């Protein structure tokens, strides 16, 4: 544990910038919307900004990216495939704990199973992560219900906590420790740790009064979602409100589904593009030949919440798929962000 003065906290990002592309929270000046973006000017970073509208997912899993190109040599009947990996080391600075949890879910999906996704691995492999404790929740937050905040437990290299005039800097890895030492940060003592604990406790206690938009007692519905006992009419009620925009998946820190398209670039060549996909789309679950096992929208909504809330899926992520950021409720043109869906299911249980 170390201590850094508030005025110097961006020095960490400046040090990281020497070898990394730094990403962090920046407020867009005209619209005052906070986005988690790649930055060149470290002074733009704002650790006190509200939770970014966009999660950091795009740093490891871009909205739209070329992952390879291929050319076919007709005469020799040979195909040449060139992978297009983004190998530049990246540093995520000022990440909120829910968003770190999202990255951990993505890690388990892309790296933690028998097949390792090389495109993702290249985005991720030289990464340095600096998290930022939430001293107070935001209106839409419910990370306390999903065990993903308000302060990160693991998976970071450095974790920052605002103690007032200073930041407490906790190292969560060897490279985190080295960074702290390279910056010659002074050591924190037990009183600092206690102050952090008090801050986190206070933050948790403020959820009742501040985080009023969403309540999601997800533990209550996990069993119900896992066993599939929820009545069809509840899913229909949810499906009727879905306009199939895809937003919930796009803003979800842990949603990993993608689509592949191969735009033709020449007579004998093509690119392979990977784009975000969403289970709300009808084409998402359509199979070759036209059969669609999840044709009605409510069946696809059902799938989404199975992914976020079922025990079977949690076994893959080693935690629930929902990280409690509340963004899906923000962007949903219906009224079926995850917290509301939990409410609808709980209502059914009570009935």
């Amino acid at each position, binding site marked *: 544990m170390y201590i850094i003065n508030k005025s110097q906290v961006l020095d960490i990002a400046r040090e990281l910038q020497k070898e990394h592309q730094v990403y962090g929270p*920046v407020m*867009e*000046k*005209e*619209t*005052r*919307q906070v*986005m988690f*973006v*790649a*930055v060149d000017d470290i002074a*733009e970073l704002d650790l006190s900004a509200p939770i970014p*509208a*966009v999660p950091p997912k*795009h740093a490891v899993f*871009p*909205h*739209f*990216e070329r992952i390879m190109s291929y050319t076919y040599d007709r005469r020799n009947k040979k195909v040449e495939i060139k992978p297009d990996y983004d190998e530049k080391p990246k540093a995520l600075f000022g990440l909120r704990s829910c968003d770190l949890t999202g990255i951990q879910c993505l890690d388990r999906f892309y790296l933690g199973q028998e097949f390792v996704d090389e495109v993702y691995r290249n985005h991720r492999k030289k990464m340095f992560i600096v998290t930022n404790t939430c001293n107070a929740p935001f209106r839409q937050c419910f990370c306390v219900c999903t065990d993903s905040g308000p302060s990160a437990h693991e998976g970071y290299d450095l974790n920052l906590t605002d103690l007032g005039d200073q930041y407490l800097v906790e190292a969560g890895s060897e490279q985190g420790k080295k960074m702290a030492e390279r910056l010659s940060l002074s050591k924190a003592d037990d009183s600092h740790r206690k102050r952090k604990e008090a801050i986190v406790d206070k933050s948790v206690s403020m959820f009742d009064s501040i985080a009023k938009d969403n309540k999601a007692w997800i533990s209550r519905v996990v069993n119900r979602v896992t066993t599939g006992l929820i009545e069809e009419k509840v899913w229909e009620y949810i499906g*009727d*409100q879905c*306009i*199939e*925009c*895809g*937003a919930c998946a*796009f803003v979800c820190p842990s949603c990993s589904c993608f*689509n592949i*398209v191969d*735009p*033709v*670039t020449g007579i004998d060549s093509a690119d392979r*593009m990977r*784009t975000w*996909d969403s289970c709300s*789309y*009808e*084409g998402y679950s*359509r199979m070759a030949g*036209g059969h*669609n096992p999840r044709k009605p929208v409510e069946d696809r909504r059902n799938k989404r919440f199975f992914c976020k809330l079922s025990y079977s899926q949690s076994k893959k992520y080693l935690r629930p798929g929902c990280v409690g950021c509340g963004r899906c409720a*923000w*962007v*949903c*043109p*219906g*009224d079926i962000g995850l917290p509301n869906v939990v409410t609808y299911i709980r209502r059914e249980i009570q009935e």
Partner: protein
Amino acid sequence: MNYKSGICTFCGTGCGHLLDVRGNAVCGVFPLQNHPVSKGRLCVRGWNVHELLNTPEKITTPLIRKNGALAEASYDEAVSYLVDNLTKYKKNSSDEIGFLASPRSSNEENYLLMKLARSVVNTNNISLDSDPGHRLSLDVMHRGTGMAGMLGSLEEIAKADFLLVVGIDITKQNPIIGSEIHMAARAGAKLVVIDTRNTQIAKLSSRFLQIRPGAYRIAMAYLAKVLVNENLADTDFIKKYTDGYDGFASSLASLKEGDVAAKTGIALGPLQEVARDLAGSNAAMVFFSSGISGFDRDTISYIYNLFVLAGKIGREGCGVNPLTGINNLQGSYDMGIAPDLLTGFQPLSDAAVQDKFNREWGVKLNSGPGKSVYELMTGGNRLKALVVVDHDESIIRNVDEISAMDFVAYIGAFQNNFMNYAHVVLPIAAYVETDGTYTNTERRVQLSKKKVEPPKDILPGWKLIADIAFRAGAKWNYGSPADVMNEIATLTPNYSGISHEKLQGTFGIKWPGGAPRFSLEGTRRKVSFVPTGTNFAVPVASEEYPILLSIGESQHYWHQNNLMKKTAIPLREYNATLLLYPQGYVAISPQNARELNVRDRFPVKVVSPYGSMEAMVQVTDKVKPNTAYVAYFVHEMVTRFFLEHKDVLKRGEDATIPVRIVKV
């Protein structure tokens, strides 16, 4: 910060977005949370706009048709070829040349195209093709209130406690407006949907009345009649603010109440309750489509008069709201893209208006009224030359007339079927490659800033049109689209005070003068009831043609998918249905399917008195027995079936055709 704020340019909602700009490419999109209309939401189209912007199907070079095939040409060659032809047809411009403008072009580009046509080529033959229905709405609103636009405000949907949605599949056409309505209903507003189909918004409503195709007019007239019969009309409001009530009352008197239930397929009780709910509400809004599936003038007039009768215009949370399906449809009319209109709905026939434009433009305008391109093509005279800008493919239904022309020019950013008929093609920059303003369905003028450089040697539309004018001898002097807007603002009372400088950093300014909605206070004149007809006939099925077919659009088959086809995710969604129904589908009820002995995806023939088409059936409980529905993206329909029904479609009647469906 690589995210740059902008305006989504698919539909007329005008949602705010942030585009992820890296280098000279747009790599992603994110909704804008503070935008007053979209409030951090986008639909499937908006969430994938970057895919369109990255399409390889762009026009990359000028092309000239040589020996039957389009061949690459230099810019000078192509633009001179175009200018030579404009000069050639200018001699007899009123008959021989037409300009087909785009409801997607920015206000600045449309204004300059309009100025080019009228002041340089000396013709008033300029029109839009897509969604001519919006003109009918504008005519009605203008005649009634003097304001040629939506009377309410999208921001105030949450303030209404009664919402009426008539004949529009709103969560598909304008999904974010549909969302606002849904949210208002969840917060307690009464949501009533009257539609031929059980749409998503119908499912979300507190009351859904499934109406027989073509019976909207009589239903609206009956609602008004209930207000009169039960003394529920807002008489204070009518006395203080309106004129023309007597005329409307006499139209209503000729409505035979005995016919209503049979003609609409709805019992009188529920209709009466809707009328009472409307009258009893504090603030009420009505939404309907202003597109191809929109209403005829008389139906719109009844909707408008109904709301005037109930005193539900001119206040917060009130309004009659025709919704545009394309991003700058409203702005195109504002820019005078109509043979008889100059900017801001100023009539060309008004001598004072003509003088003003003559003075400002330094020309003597052709005062002949001009005709729409559609009229010119189908009206018997032979149009010889046509200039088309960035267009949907619906015009392909006039493919015979277009291929017979001596000269067709296509100007656009993306490849389009029009190129198959063009003699010269000129590329222009995409909307993110130049500045421009767009006016959404609620009259909100929004500035979209340049975010990336256009490809080398490709000019933005405004610059290309200015260059064409210059080469044709005009002395225009615009340094930027901002200069163009300054000129628009000088000539157009509605746009007075609007400039790029003022729009910069805002979420738009609503004309006139930033007014959130139509207001009773600022106007010099009274609000009028508009004249209404007394023809309450509804299309009738016969023994020979027992099924009433209506036409609409769907989310992923949006305006012939000209743009959707150039994306990945929306394309896949389009293909999902097209793979199931390769020739398109005609939706019929399970009962009709049983009678015909067909199941989903069985091929059928749809036969009308005028023609026929083959399609697969989609069996769905969304349509009532003995009604059917076709999404009009179906290529087969657009080219032939529509052609055979031009007159029927022109009549409006929410485009209803009695048909017979037979198994093949």
